[in-house]
């Protein structure tokens, strides 16, 4: 890929998804540029997960989604996987593999069917483990790890692909405050290193603190896509989430604190 991409890294227009007869996503347009981290917020059922899955090519979607200027739908699955990493919510591991083996799964899109692990693979896994602070328990079965540790291993797996685009679905859910901050910092670093990150979250304070832009979804539509202060205004919080919000200054950001339901 050339260094100067005229188009944004990821450009989606008019994205619509139907599940059965229900439209869960309708006319969504969103773009991600290199170096930026975008938070995706919205009430339950607004379509955040569906949008992430559509952008990852995991669900059939109408409209156009282009990655690095090329249509996502026409890419081979493995090629798409090298460009777009997807971190689902829940951090599920079905078998007790070692954390390092889980992280190494992130290299699958790079391997040809008969190839052994390459130096590049080993280096990428080591970088992902180091970035997420999981090197210390790399050899432990993931099923024996705590929730915070699992979340970081799951993120390391997504980072190990070293895809330019990272789509993360509630990466900080059910984590303690310190781990929430650590994960968000890691996502921001991944963006600053030249990638683009889109992270769905219910934590509006984290969104305001860490995101360059906040995309707000409501009932399958994108109703705002702007810097945090603008996207998370008191009026919009009331209209979208049905809550009254107060704001505090923290770390140079105007952070919304939800106050009471309206």
């Amino acid at each position, binding site marked *: 890929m050339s260094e100067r991409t005229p188009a944004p890294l990821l450009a989606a227009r008019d994205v619509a998804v139907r599940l059965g007869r229900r439209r869960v996503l309708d006319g969504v347009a969103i773009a991600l540029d290199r170096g930026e981290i975008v938070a995706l917020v919205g009430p339950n059922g607004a379509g955040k997960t569906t949008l992430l*899955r559509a952008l*990852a*090519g*995991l669900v059939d979607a109408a409209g156009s989604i282009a990655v690095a200027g090329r249509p996502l739908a026409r890419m*081979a*699955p*493995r*090629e*798409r*996987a*090298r460009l*777009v*990493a*997807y*971190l*689902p919510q*829940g951090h*599920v*591991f*079905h*078998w*007790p*593999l*070692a954390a*390092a*083996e*889980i992280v190494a*799964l*992130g290299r*699958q*899109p790079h391997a040809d*069917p008969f190839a052994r692990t390459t130096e590049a693979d080993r280096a990428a896994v080591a970088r992902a483990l180091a970035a997420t602070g999981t090197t210390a328990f790399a*050899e432990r*079965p993931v*099923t*024996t790890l705590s929730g915070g540790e699992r979340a970081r291993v*799951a993120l390391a*797996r997504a980072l190990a*692909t070293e895809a330019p685009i990272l789509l993360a679905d509630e990466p900080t859910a059910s984590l303690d405050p310190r781990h929430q901050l650590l994960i968000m910092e890691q996502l921001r670093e991944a963006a600053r290193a030249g990638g683009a990150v889109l992270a769905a979250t219910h934590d509006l304070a984290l969104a305001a603190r860490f995101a360059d832009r906040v995309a707000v979804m409501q009932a399958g539509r994108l109703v705002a896509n702007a810097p945090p202060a603008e996207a998370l205004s008191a009026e919009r919080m009331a209209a979208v989430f049905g809550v009254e919000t107060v704001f505090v200054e923290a770390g140079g950001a105007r952070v919304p604190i939800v106050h009471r339901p309206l």
Partner: protein
Amino acid sequence: MHSVARARFPVTVSLAILVLALAFVSLGVGAVALSPRAVLAALCDGEGVSGLIVREIRLPRTLLALLIGATFGLSGAALQGLLRNPLAEPALFGAPQAAAAGASLVIAFGFAPVTSLAVPIAGIAGALASIAGLVAIAGRRASLTVTLLAGLALASFAGAATALILNLAPNPYIALEIAFWLLGSLEDRSREHVLLVAPFLVASWAILAPQARAFRALTLGEDAAASLGVDVARTRLAVVIGVATGIGAAISVTGAIGFVGLVAPHLVRRAVGSDPARILVPAALAGAALLLAADIAVRLVPAAVEIKVGVATALVGVPFFLAMIFGERRALEGAPA
């Protein structure tokens, strides 16, 4: 539980040696007991009565036990990998039941003796029909739940068909013959049986083994696996077809033999770890060893009528499986759903 298994290679080699040793024992065991030296001599020159016994009677039986046991083990491990569930077993999609129904039909109304080739051919046809039925009902890109439910429906239908055939059997002797055939045995199977069934078994291995990478990615769930470039729907179809082909063909020759496909992966998981990709070869070897051992055991048990190997695997398999469940209960309950 330690999943980082550096010991995998030695385990695989030990299992392979065990399978060969059991195969050799299997050639010497039976109504006429032969010494290892006599077995070797009979295998090499094939002369005299012992040559006839070893080459024509015991070699096909041993090869069938080996190949079919390996197919059970591999199919079980593949299904457990696909479903991310250690309790998945090869009968899940109805192929063995369909194979049994096809074979029963021929025994009942085709006037074929139980050991003729018409029986496995009809069984294989039944298994292939069940695959076609499953794909037709569930569709190529169906979800796991729909596929499982369609498999359950087919299995029940095939079971009902077998019951109907037994019910309509022209005379009680034929019904009895079918019932005995269904118990599962490797007795009196010929070289032709081996040649008939081997291509299907090898084809099933060729379909299942390349899915190893996909099974490992599925550790993360279907969405994450798909995001890593795995075509999950295609993997599912390949496993359904591979398992049905192999197990269907196996059941067509032997009658119902259970539990090997379920137990073999469990046995090796303790030694080689839980990686659903790395477990495939050891599970196949363990399956071969289990079925060979069971088939040797039924020949050693002093009984007026030979115990059918299908009965033996079920009798030994159930308590063994229960013991393993109790042993692993904590690990199973501690693991996320």
